[in-house]
């Protein structure tokens, strides 16, 4: 495995790729907020929201179904919402008996469940599109511009940089573990869960210490280049008129969606 599996950015030349990253971040957050604010069962507004998403996919030149094809990762969590079907509110639709359980799906519950599903599905697609058209370092700059404390953005930048280095280290450690925990063919490994947990814990401890020592060396490398505790960053992005107009257009569209959802 190469650590590149962590890269979510898709190189391309498009309106969305060129857009100022803070516009992309802000619009994505507003889009997700709008989904959360739309009332349950606002199907026409949800439908139009989806059209907005398709249009954004089209603008990205990654294919109109780009985010859709990657959007199923939120589905397992939807399990948690299935119980919303049996909301005590609304009119009962049926009555199911499962042993000691009596489950009563209601119309309110059903609307609630599907609204949650649609909201989460639309929101996750927006987030998928955001990372696909924005290089992660640019996203970090966007957060800097949007007044997220520098210490947090810098920790995130370090996380992103060393994620790849440490992931490679994990892969090496796991490989070493596998090559040492061989079992004769046909013989079931007699190691207990406790033993396996201990080995994994040792790996975690080892990884921790290596990381700890690495942070010392990085600290030295930073000091050697004049670091004195004050983080300085370059103002790398400048909002162009096109960024402003795109942002305003998106805000208007989202407000319209809210209006339609409440009619």
């Amino acid at each position, binding site marked *: 495995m190469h650590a590149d599996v962590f890269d979510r950015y898709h190189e391309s030349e498009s309106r969305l790729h060129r857009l100022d990253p803070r516009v992309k971040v802000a619009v994505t957050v507003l889009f997700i907020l709008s989904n959360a604010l739309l009332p349950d069962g606002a199907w026409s507004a949800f439908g139009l929201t989806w059209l907005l998403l398709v249009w954004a996919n089209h603008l990205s030149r990654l294919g109109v179904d780009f985010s859709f094809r990657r959007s199923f990762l939120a589905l397992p*969590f939807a399990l948690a919402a299935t*119980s919303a079907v049996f909301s*005590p509110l609304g009119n009962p639709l049926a009555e199911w008996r499962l042993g000691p359980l009596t489950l009563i799906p209601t119309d309110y519950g059903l609307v609630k469940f599907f609204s949650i599903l649609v909201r989460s599905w639309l929101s996750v697609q927006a987030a998928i599109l955001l990372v696909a058209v924005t290089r992660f370092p640019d996203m970090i700059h966007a957060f800097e511009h949007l007044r997220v404390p520098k210490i947090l953005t810098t920790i995130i930048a370090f996380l992103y940089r060393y994620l790849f280095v440490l992931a490679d280290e994990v892969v090496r450690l796991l490989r070493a573990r596998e090559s040492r925990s061989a079992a004769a063919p046909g013989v079931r490994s007699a190691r207990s869960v406790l033993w396996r947990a201990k080995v*994994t814990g040792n790996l975690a401890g080892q990884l921790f210490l290596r990381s700890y020592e690495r942070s010392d060396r990085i600290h030295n490398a930073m000091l050697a280049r004049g670091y004195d505790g004050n983080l300085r960053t370059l103002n790398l992005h400048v909002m162009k008129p096109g960024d402003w107009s795109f942002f305003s257009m998106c805000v208007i569209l989202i407000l319209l969606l809210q209006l339609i959802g409440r009619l």
Partner: protein
Amino acid sequence: MNSPLPLHIPDGFLTVIISGVFWAVTIVMVGIAISKTNKSLGEKQVPLMGVMAAFIFAAQMLNFPVAGGTSGHFLGGALAAIVLGPWAAMLVMTAVIGVQALLFQDGGLLAMGANIFNMGILTAAIGFGLYRGVSGRTRKIRLAVAGCAAWLAVVASALITSLQLWLSGASQLQIVVPAMLGVHILIGLGEALITVAALTFIERTRPDLLNQESVTEKGGRGWIVAGVIVSIGAVLLSPFASTHPDGLERVAEDMGFLHLGQSAPYRLLPDYTIPFLGATPLSTIVAGVVGALVVLGLAFVLGQSLRKAGR
């Protein structure tokens, strides 16, 4: 990449109000953490916490086969709080959860405040608070408490996640609490085992990172109080919520919490209950305490066996 624990709430599940409330709490806590770590770590905080965040992220990739194709995973909040101190651990977990949401859509953006609270702040309070309380004790006791705290941190995260979903109207209390707790009581055991083994390893190689002096330096006595209160809260609330959801709903309604989350007027249907074992509040609390003792015992035994293995 799959989430190690089904605790990362995606967008769409929490109402705007619940998301907002937890964002507010998280922002305040993270703000305090920034000024605290700035004082205690100084210029070193950036490389240390940055690489530690990458460590937690990478450590979450570690898994170990348990049985029948399932694996134990690692969340790391309690371990981070014990070795780095609660404030630094909060920032580290904030960065980890932020990157998981932004880069991998593992957890939502609007829900991020709640996710950071559940997996970063709560785990820091339990992990560090309980460990800080026994920092001067023998190795065995410290490791046992660390394991216990790691288990409890996962269970408490699962509990608060269930409650947030319920308050948002996304789940029924009667179903989500037992389901989430059931899963995480097991996952938490893996967490406890890995945390204890990792601490054993660290203590053998770098005892200076875990001695009493360095632990007490990382956070004041207030953390013991916070850790114990949160732990007791989780231990008392878990069995209560899973066996007496009606009671919890009534309490929440009386205190006006339910109207926070739900847009529609709320009315209880009295015939809608899950008849669990006819438990009284007392017996469920006893059960919670017994459960905690069992885990404490397990962690104690593990600590001892690891010590022998280490010799």
